[in-house]
């Protein structure tokens, strides 16, 4: 199946752009970003705090398969319903510096919409490290599987 999400990450730049079109009215797409119960469902995170307004702050928490908790937080700088959210994003207790996110919500038709997300990192190096995360997590999963196999043999 072809990916609907497009990633634009030019070499040596410290930002990237994620674009995606949804078969959803823009209002519903926007709700998925502001209602805690919905965020918890699709992001798989617990919403500890979410103030949907300028200068509001947010804090999410995820629990990994080992039971470790990871917190993310940030501040909302711009909040225009069904149009735009500008916010910071920080992974607590990680070497990654805070990043800046520009989310633009666009109505295409009554039933379709588009999300454009620009993420700006502290440096091109940090951007590349973030890009590599899903891959290294995949490797970790493979690694865990090896461990399981080894345990079975012992």
């Amino acid at each position: 199946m072809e990916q609907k999400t497009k990633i634009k990450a030019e070499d040596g730049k410290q930002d990237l752009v994620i674009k995606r079109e949804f078969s959803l009215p823009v209002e519903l797409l926007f709700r998925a970003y502001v209602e805690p119960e919905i965020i918890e469902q699709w992001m798989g995170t617990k919403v500890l705090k979410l103030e949907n307004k300028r200068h509001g702050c947010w804090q999410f928490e995820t629990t990994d398969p080992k039971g470790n908790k990871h917190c993310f937080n940030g501040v909302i700088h711009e909040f225009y319903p069904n149009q735009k959210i500008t916010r910071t994003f920080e992974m607590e207790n990680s070497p990654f510096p805070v990043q800046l996110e520009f989310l633009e919500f666009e109505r295409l038709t009554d039933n379709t919409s588009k999300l454009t997300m620009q993420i700006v990192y502290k440096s091109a190096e940090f951007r590349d490290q973030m890009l590599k995360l899903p891959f290294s997590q995949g490797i970790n999963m493979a690694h865990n599987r090896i461990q399981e196999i080894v345990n079975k043999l012992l």
Partner: protein
Amino acid sequence: MNLRRDVFQAIADPTRRAILLMVASQSMTAGAIAANFDTARPTVSKHLQILTECELLKQEQNGREIYYHVNANKMEEVADFVEQFGKMWDERFNKLEAIMQAHKTKE
């Protein structure tokens, strides 16, 4: 371009990733690799064939045995991680879309 997509297909499979990790530390024969898996030997052979075809693994004849080892250069090429990153977001957004479509029909 096509070749690179093959590389990503190759590493998308957990068994093949496990094989890569295994031979990363030492060259191994097909038999030694297969011994680490519950799956049938031909299945492991098929995985080795795919990994060799897209050049992630190299074969080396040593006496009567063929040893497999990781092709570091090819692994470097996979350092274009953008595709994996996009896949993660795509799955996340697919979920969002499904959840919100359910909301839509409720209203």
